[in-house]
């Protein structure tokens, strides 16, 4: 009897804390936003700028997140090394870019600039895909039937190994991307106080195009459908004559290609790469994948954009009105709090299926 009562009380207390958390977060968001907007320190143009930079960052997160989500979908593996695959792509693009810049091709005229960007993407994708397939072959394939934590630890090991391999290859220094003149120019919008560069447009457009392409590939083509079939049921897929290994390798390759392309876009915007470049975007992209519902391709896109916006706009909107010092230092606090909040209301992400709870 006593135990029953105690359990009941604990249940109530737990529910109380849960609701308290939800209410606190919502209150913080509402009050903070109201105060910030009420304070009117920021013009509409600067909000627009924040939204654009959030969208740019979010597009890159989304492209990386696709690799996490596809591999998770097919192997139920958190591919911790994916951030390093992205970093490798950024390096690959860098070396192509310096070579092209060295012969004066990069900024010769707008057409050569565009060709150069395409070549950089190609170089980055080759590097990323090669590396991803090596990692899959060496660190993951032999562990495909092991308990779930085993490949996870192997993935963490691969992440460290790749990071410090690149440090060994290229040293600890920062490599600076050459500037592509036409991309660095402003888009003539004619709005005072609001600027967009062509590179921002390129990032958002190419991210959307690549994601749409991937979506169509997975939904419409035979190979894409086979990937979906394998991620649902490997044994049955094999009975249908699908080469399961090939589908898995394909998945890694596609994810890596997206990450490689994201690497070049990242290099073009932020202009720096060093061995640690992959770590933070990797974690963020993984978070984006979870936000959207891991294993779900449109979810990864949505999660990436959402996370980009939360990071870009969140600190200023929610915190600066509350008088928090250096609110931008806390952008990741906001990002992860939002993640937890989303997971409380939708335990399998924004677009995750309810059934996924049965994992």
């Amino acid at each position, binding site marked *: 009897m006593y135990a029953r009562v105690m359990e009941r009380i604990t249940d109530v207390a737990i529910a109380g804390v849960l609701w308290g958390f939800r209410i606190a977060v919502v209150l913080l968001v509402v009050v903070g936003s109201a105060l910030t907007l009420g304070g009117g320190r920021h013009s509409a143009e600067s909000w627009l700028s924040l939204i654009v930079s959030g969208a740019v960052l979010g597009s890159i997160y989304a492209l990386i997140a696709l690799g996490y989500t596809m591999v998770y979908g097919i192997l139920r593996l958190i591919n911790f090394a994916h951030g390093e695959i992205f970093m490798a792509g950024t390096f690959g693009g860098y070396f192509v870019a310096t070579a092209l810049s060295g012969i004066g091709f990069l900024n010769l005229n707008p057409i050569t600039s565009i060709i150069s960007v395409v070549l950089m993407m190609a170089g980055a994708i080759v590097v990323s895909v090669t590396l991803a397939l090596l990692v899959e072959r060496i660190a993951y394939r032999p562990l495909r039937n092991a308990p779930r934590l085993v490949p996870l630890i192997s993935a963490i090991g691969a992440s460290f190994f790749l990071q410090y391999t690149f440090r060994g290859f290229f040293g*600890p220094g920062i490599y600076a991307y050459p500037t592509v003149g036409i991309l660095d120019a402003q888009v003539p919008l004619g709005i005072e106080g609001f*600027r967009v560069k062509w590179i921002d447009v390129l990032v958002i457009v190419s991210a959307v195009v690549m994601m749409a392409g991937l979506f169509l590939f997975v939904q419409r083509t035979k190979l894409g459908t086979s990937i979906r079939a394998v991620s649902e049921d490997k044994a049955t897929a094999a009975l249908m004559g699908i080469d399961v290994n090939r589908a898995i390798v394909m998945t890694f390759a596609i994810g890596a290609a997206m990450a490689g392309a994201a690497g070049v876009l990242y290099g073009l915007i*932020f202009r*720096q790469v060093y061995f640690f470049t992959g770590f933070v975007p990797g974690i963020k992209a993984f978070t984006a994948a979870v936000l959207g519902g891991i294993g779900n391709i449109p979810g990864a896109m949505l999660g990436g954009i959402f996370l980009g916006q939360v990071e870009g706009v969140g600190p200023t909107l929610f915190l600066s009105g509350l008088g928090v010092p250096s*609110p931008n230092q806390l952008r990741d606090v906001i990002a992860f709090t939002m993640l937890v909040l989303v997971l409380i209301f939708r335990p399998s992400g924004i677009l995750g299926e309810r059934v996924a709870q049965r994992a």
Partner: protein
Amino acid sequence: MRNTLRWSAVLTGMLLVLAACQPASSGSPGQSTAESASAAASVDAAAVCAADEAGCVEIPSGEPLHIVFWGVLSGADSTLGEDSKRGVEIAIDDINNTLLGHDIQFSTEDGLCTPEGGNTAAQKLAADTTIAGLIGPSCTDESLGGMQTLYDAGMTTISSSATRAGLTVPDRPAEYAAFLRTAHSDYFQGRMVAEYLYNELGLKKLATVHDGSGYAKALAEVARTHFEELGGTITTGGDQAIAKTDTDMSAVLTAIAADPPDAIFFPVFIAGAGYLTDQAKDTPGLEDALLMSADGTFSPDYIKAAGPAALGHLISSPDTSKFAAGYQDFLAKHKAKYGGDPLSIFHAHAYDAATLVFAALEKVALTDADGTTFIPRTAYREALYASKDVEGLTGPLNCNASGDCGAPILAVYKVTAREVGPPVVWPPEAPIWAPEPDFYTK
């Protein structure tokens, strides 16, 4: 499995032997070395060593004299440590790799630029009874982590790049006696920045950004405080911070732009400073703001990272144009040895730290009839503090009681079209402004 067991059995056996051999006073290795060697040593060396609180470092004839550089050699900040390490290496080359009749054995220890890294490194250094001279560490955090351990072991270190003001204040704690530096104190650098911006340029509104590192936060604070003391104002939202790993600075820059300052001072490291410089140019409201960073970005890597936006950027840093004549020789040797320009700004300070160490060692060392050299530890520390008018690359070196050995000779540099290149040219031309000499005594 079988191997593991076998190995552990043998290792356990060895441990037991070693444990049994350990004398009672294991905590103070210097003492025991002195005791065990006293029979062989001449009378006066034995007496001096016995009288020295921390005992002696003993270098038998034919054994090398061990000099260690410790600092950040891995991770994102490792260019700082690597730069200083090269300075020490060139200093050793300059004395032909010998000191007091011994070859020099040079080794390094990684302190990771963190307090626990410094702590562990210091533990390892303290355990090594062969170490005669210590140069380092790179960062203030490492110093704080390792100070007590070094002090307890009777060791003394001299840093070339730890600049936090509190490390060499007159009323510092007792264990800070283990620490001296040739680097300037942030107290001067932060104040100089404020003076330059307010008095020289006549700017009235300042904003600062730090990156959550101890170095940047402290330096930004000194600059802000002094700027206000001079009569300037810090803008609303003018005290901002980023994370070291951030790449997208638009939010923080937009926040600053809401109340546009005349200048933004961001004493952060190369990567973050590069992003800030590059993106500030694209932030409406900040087009005319002066951008300034500190000695952490005095490197060609910064200009590469910031790209063309670096043009006109200000950097506060030690004044290489006031360095001694030998500095040009040093640069030539550096180029020959490492095939490139220095990585950061503290190589000369490290060279000077090594010079001080060599001088102090020569002053206190005793050699007995067998050719064994003894270095009494406390006497060595006192000799370092007593260093006067030693010729260094950065100028004359005079150590004071609170551990400052170098004269702070700071200046403001401006990045010109020549440096932005391409290709990036280094080192930069002469500074554009330097404070009056009496600035350092105010």
